[in-house]
């Protein structure tokens, strides 16, 4: 009993009627490393937000279930409460002040002070800093992590690996730290740095601190964790001792869905053995979705799926081709080299794009449906314009006719083509985005996250529409976080991991193959299996 540090009992959470966590039970013992694993949207962050008493949880109606710390029910209402209970967190992105020294960063807002004359009159806030004792404390914390670096060095300019350790040292330095949460700590680290970090995590566990370790790198999980819990769609799928399981099984648990994949085969495919698009060593500087050199070939008439976890770079590919984010490399479309970083020429050459950021990039929310549909074609192809000498005015009648045709063809539910796009439902907004792309008569359609944020019925309609377009001869590259939908319509699926193509799978490959590839351990697996 006494070594039971943390227990989550039947924790559930709803966001406006949408269950994102269902009856999660989790136990963490002293000195144990507990890995939490799951796809994006599986509920990992929500669970951590509950544990830290983040305000998002409490402003949306709190959660059900209870949290026990060392056998006693804990009321965590704010991050400050969480700190008092001895819960610490090492963040994915570093929260350090570059101009401060290591010691100052570690001791920020927890400074050790001694009284002086001024502070005796004006209060504690003006006490003198006890630099010596703070340095000693910092040294101790750094020593725990085997860091030989001096505590008076400025943080600016240190390698990322060091910054990660300073974050950890800050948490260790807090008195009474019992539980430490690592949120994808190795995501930004190089291999040797990651190895050092894992060593440090083991050492901390050896000192009796309970560790919650969120990661999607299965190799690491198997190496470092004692217990693994797999979340999927807000449900706890399994909790297993690491000894009793292997990477392959974890990957299967992570991906495997109860939803059946309805894939109709035998439709009249007309894939021609002609490469329509060839991408060579494409690098895209899209923040949070960096692409670090991909090579892809797409045949005419194919539907190619691009999958992978969030932040791995899958979204960067389409954005890079379209020139929305700075790109480098070579893209050859229909035998001609496409100019990069020039959206206008790319659209002109016959490629259309439906953005993953529907409300931010895809639509003018305050404008009418017809204005949205006609806009790009008007600007790029000079459609829907009447010429008055040198002046080109919009041809409202033509726009209206075309918009009404699109509304009918794509079954956009609206009161009229003049309705504000912002007032449409998500699925209908998505159709407007697709209608805008189709108005350009593209040969190649890039679609990113076409079903994000729309309900199940609308999802099916959108996917059917893509299939139908493909049957009519359009080549489609679909990027999606939802493996199931990629598998339902794509001819083949490329999995992107850490900005590179990890591998290619047919849509009917087993779940575990997808899971392993998404967590970047596909190669490790085959070795592991043979051994």
């Amino acid at each position, binding site marked *: 009993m006494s070594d039971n540090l943390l227990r989550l009992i039947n924790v559930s959470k709803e966001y406006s009627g949408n269950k994102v966590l269902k009856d999660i039970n989790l136990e963490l013992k002293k000195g144990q490393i507990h890995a939490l694993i799951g796809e994006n949207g599986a509920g990992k962050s929500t669970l951590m937000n509950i544990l830290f008493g983040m305000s998002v949880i409490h402003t949306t109606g709190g959660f059900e279930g209870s949290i026990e710390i060392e056998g006693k029910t804990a009321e965590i209402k704010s991050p400050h409460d969480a700190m008092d209970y001895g819960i610490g967190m090492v963040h994915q992105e570093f929260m350090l002040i570059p101009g401060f020294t290591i010691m100052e960063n570690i001791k920020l807002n927890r400074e050790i002070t001694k009284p002086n004359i001024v502070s005796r009159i004006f209060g504690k806030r003006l006490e003198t800093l006890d630099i010596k004792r703070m340095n000693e404390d910092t040294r101790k914390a750094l020593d725990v992590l085997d860091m030989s670096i001096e505590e008076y060095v400025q943080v600016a300019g240190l390698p990322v690996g060091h910054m990660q350790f300073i974050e950890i040292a800050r948490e260790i330095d807090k008195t009474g730290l019992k539980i430490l949460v690592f949120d994808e700590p190795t995501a930004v680290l190089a291999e040797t740095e990651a190895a050092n970090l894992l060593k440090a995590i083991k050492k901390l566990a050896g000192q009796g601190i309970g560790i919650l370790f969120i990661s999607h790198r299965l190799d690491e999980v198997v190496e470092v964790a004692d217990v693994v819990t797999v979340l999927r769609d807000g449900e706890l799928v399994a909790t297993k001792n690491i000894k009793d399981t292997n990477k392959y099984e974890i990957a299967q648990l992570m991906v495997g869905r109860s939803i059946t994949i309805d894939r109709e085969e035998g439709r009249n495919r007309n894939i021609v053995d002609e490469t329509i698009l060839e991408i060579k060593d494409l690098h895209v500087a899209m923040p949070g979705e960096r692409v670090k050199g991909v090579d892809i070939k797409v045949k005419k008439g194919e539907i190619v799926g691009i999958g992978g976890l969030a932040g791995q770079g899958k979204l960067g590919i389409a954005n890079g081709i*379209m020139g*929305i984010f700075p790109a480098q490399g070579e893209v050859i479309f229909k035998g001609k080299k496409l100019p990069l970083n*020039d*959206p*206008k*020429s*790319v*659209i*002109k050459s016959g490629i259309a*794009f439906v*953005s993953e*950021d529907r409300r*931010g*990039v*895809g*639509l*003018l*929310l*305050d*404008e009418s449906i017809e*204005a949205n549909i006609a*806009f*790009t074609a*008007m*600007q*790029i192809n*000079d459609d829907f*314009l009447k010429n008055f000498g040198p*002046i*080109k*005015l*919009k041809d409202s009648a033509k726009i209206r006719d075309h918009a009404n045709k699109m509304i009918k063809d794509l079954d956009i539910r609206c009161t009229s083509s003049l309705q504000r796009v912002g007032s449409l439902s998500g699925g209908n907004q998505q159709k407007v985005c697709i209608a805008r792309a189709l108005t350009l008569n593209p040969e190649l359609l890039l679609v990113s996250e076409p079903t994000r944020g729309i309900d199940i019925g609308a999802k099916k309609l959108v996917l059917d529409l893509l299939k139908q377009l493909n049957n009519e001869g359009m080549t489609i590259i679909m990027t999606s976080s939802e493996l199931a939908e990629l598998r339902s319509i794509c001819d083949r699926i490329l999995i992107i991991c850490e900005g590179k193509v990890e591998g290619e799978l047919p849509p009917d490959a087993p779940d575990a193959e997808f899971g392993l590839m998404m967590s970047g351990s596909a190669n490790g697996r085959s070795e592991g299996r043979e051994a």
Partner: protein
Amino acid sequence: MVEVKRKKNTFNDIVNKIGFPTIFIGGFWILLLIAGGALGISVITLLSDTIKRAGMNGILVLAMVPSIQSGTGPNFALPVGIVCGLFALVCSIEFGFTGWAWLFVAIAFAIPLAAFVGYLYGRLLNAVKGSEMTIATYTGFSIVAAMCLAWLMIPFKSPNMGWFIGKGLRETIQLDAIGGAQILSNFLRFSLFAEEGLIAVNSDTGIIIPTGMLLLFLICCVIVWLYFRSKSGIAISAGGINPKFAQSSGINIDRCRIKANVLSTILAAIGIIVYSQGYGYAQLYSAPLMMAFAAVAAVLIGGASAQRAKVSHVIIGVLIYQGLFTTALPVANQMFEGTDLSEILRMIIQNGIILYALTKVKGGDN
């Protein structure tokens, strides 16, 4: 009960549609008009002055539309265009033009000059994305200061403009000396409710309609309205509402912003020429310093926001704003004799409205 509730809703709808500030200020103007009538001030004179001042300021206010639509915010750098217009105006005098020729040459010269300067100003705005309004304000101030030197040093010889002693141009140049005062305002001028009859030509009583000036204002309005229905204008608007959307549709946003500010600067230049002829004097030196603020306040009162503006906002705004101040002055003087409350009132309302509108700006283009 239900019926009452529904009525209230429609009232709220109307308020939302027109905008609370517009209704409030408009209502205040009407109240002042009634008060003025009760105090024995001629309402006809007040209305006449309102129309005259609205016509004089209209194009200056119209200059706000392109810059707001392009996403660079209200054109606080209006003085940039104004000094271009003034420069063209004095050049036209220097070259010896008078009457209509003076007006046409001034406008014809002002347009290319303002286009060039507006282009440079647009380049500047593209370099300081995110803080356009602050930069614009200081650009306006700086150019007025720089031109103060220029006015002094220009080697113009025309006796109509020089100081009587020494070099440089006068602060105020009388335009009737060259036959330019009210030349446009008096074109096809007529009066409503004049002493001579309901509609009278060549009367100085009643509500005087400066037809020529209003016509030019309306022509400019139609041009701007049409422009924002053209390919180029639609691209500018889209870039202003959602830069990412425009960019993903292959639009060069920077070029759109430059185009919009060129148009705005040209309108400001034409605007000040029209203003000067209506006023009868061209005011140099520090006179343009604060003109942007009145124009910004007018378009905002008309219902525009710092991100969206229509030609209709300009027409409504300039009428209400100028109406308010032509009315407030005599009424306040009548009520508080010997004080200058009206000017204080003007500053409070003008700057209050700008402040109100700027608090509604949603942060940046994120």
